[in-house]
């Protein structure tokens, strides 16, 4: 039976790991490579690394850190953050990452995803959507680390990304990010019902129960977890951890 993937999503700011709340307010978490080593020892399923200021600063990926990370990992790795050049993509895969996460650049150059998918296969591209509710309760899509609004709604954009060749989608609720209050199930369900490719729900995980809910009720194929795996609890100290294997198995 294919297990539902629970994927720590780690945020890189410069050369350090941080965690955000609602895409704002950074807390310092630690050294990226050492944290990866810990997750390696905990045998997590997969890891996603996002450089959250790369696009904003028009920076390219930090290949040195990526190499250090890939050398430590023996599970699937995905990288996102300032991915806009197909040469860079090739280099990222050569370093040992399996997938790239493309967010801002998909909006700037829609055929980029198509080119990456054609060259490396759809399974290597994760289309990333950051969404937030506006004053009227309607969802809007943002790029560049949540700083630029684009005139698309998440549903249409998800379908477009699928059409362009993305193999998976990373759907992040900016409102739920770092709140421990649970995923945005409504948002997730509306997207999963419209696309054929797997959707990774992201933003808000606080308990294993939340994970189960977004999978069962939201139709998510996998979930990304952030605060839950780097803090002991809400408003408590930094502690890199992962739910027990048995706990997850029993629940999912």
């Amino acid at each position, binding site marked *: 039976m294919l297990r539902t993937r629970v994927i720590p999503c780690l945020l890189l700011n410069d050369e350090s790991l941080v965690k955000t709340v609602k895409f704002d307010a950074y807390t310092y978490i630690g050294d990226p490579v050492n944290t990866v080593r810990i997750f390696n020892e905990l045998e997590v399923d997969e890891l996603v690394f996002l450089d959250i200021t790369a696009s904003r600063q028009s920076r390219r990926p930090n290949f040195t850190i990526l190499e250090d990370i*890939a050398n430590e990992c023996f599970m699937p790795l995905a990288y996102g953050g300032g991915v806009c050049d197909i040469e860079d993509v090739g280099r990222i895969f050569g*370093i040992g990452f399996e997938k790239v996460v493309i967010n801002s650049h998909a909006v700037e150059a829609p055929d980029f995803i198509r080119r990456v998918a054609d060259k490396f296969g759809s399974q290597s591209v994760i289309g990333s959507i950051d969404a937030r509710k506006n004053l009227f309760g309607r969802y809007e899509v943002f790029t560049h680390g949540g700083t630029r609004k684009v005139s698309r709604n998440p549903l249409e954009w998800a379908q477009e990304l699928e059409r362009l060749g993305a193999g998976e989608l990373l759907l992040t609720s900016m409102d739920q990010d770092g709140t421990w209050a649970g995923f945005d199930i409504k948002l997730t369900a509306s997207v999963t019902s419209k696309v054929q490719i797997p959707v990774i729900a992201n933003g808000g995980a606080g308990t294993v129960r939340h994970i189960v809910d977004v999978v069962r009720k939201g139709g998510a194929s996998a979930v990304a977890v952030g605060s839950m795996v780097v803090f002991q609890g809400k408003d408590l100290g930094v502690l890199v951890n992962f739910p027990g294997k048995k706990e997850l198995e029993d629940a999912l």
Partner: protein
Amino acid sequence: MLTVVDYGMGNLGSIVNMFRKIGVQAVVTAEPAGIERADKLLLPGVGAFDTAMTRIKQQGLLDLLNKKAMVEKVPILGVCLGMQLLTDSSEEGSLPGLGWIPARTLAFKGRLDTGRFKVPHMGWNIVEKHTESPLTAGFGSFEEVRFYFVHSYFVKCDDDRHSILKTTYGFHFDSGVQNGNIFGAQFHPEKSHTFGMRLFRNFARL
């Protein structure tokens, strides 16, 4: 020397990393001379079937690989797309495969209810032992053994005895194969933690 064939497609870095971690010396080469010297070969692969076969031919490796496999009979392990290349043909492309294992590579699409089962088959799934094989030694009762899979096509052996591991995704398919000195793993051992390490160790010890 365990040699990883570099024909321009595949996670070579991760594979070499894992061998290094388990203390096995491995080299990566695209050169015929390097492959000639090998006493064990690993055929990686991520991407499309035809692209892979074309590149292998273009790099002048086809005859050499055939010789290593069929004449010298060195142990060869094909991983992911590499395993699919071992078969006679694939529904993904039109070119013939290496044909070292009588089998065909077929598409999940059309055979699966894609409402319930997404394609590609991506994630951690368990394997069940079928025919005995030195490649799958030491895994105990296989109760918890899982590997990371990413593929849209699967292999079906003509002779079921060549199937050494089976996995269920909608239906049973061959996730591990062996025909004499030719071995195949549909999953990514280099991305499967300690499970992958054990498998690679078994291969290195052959």
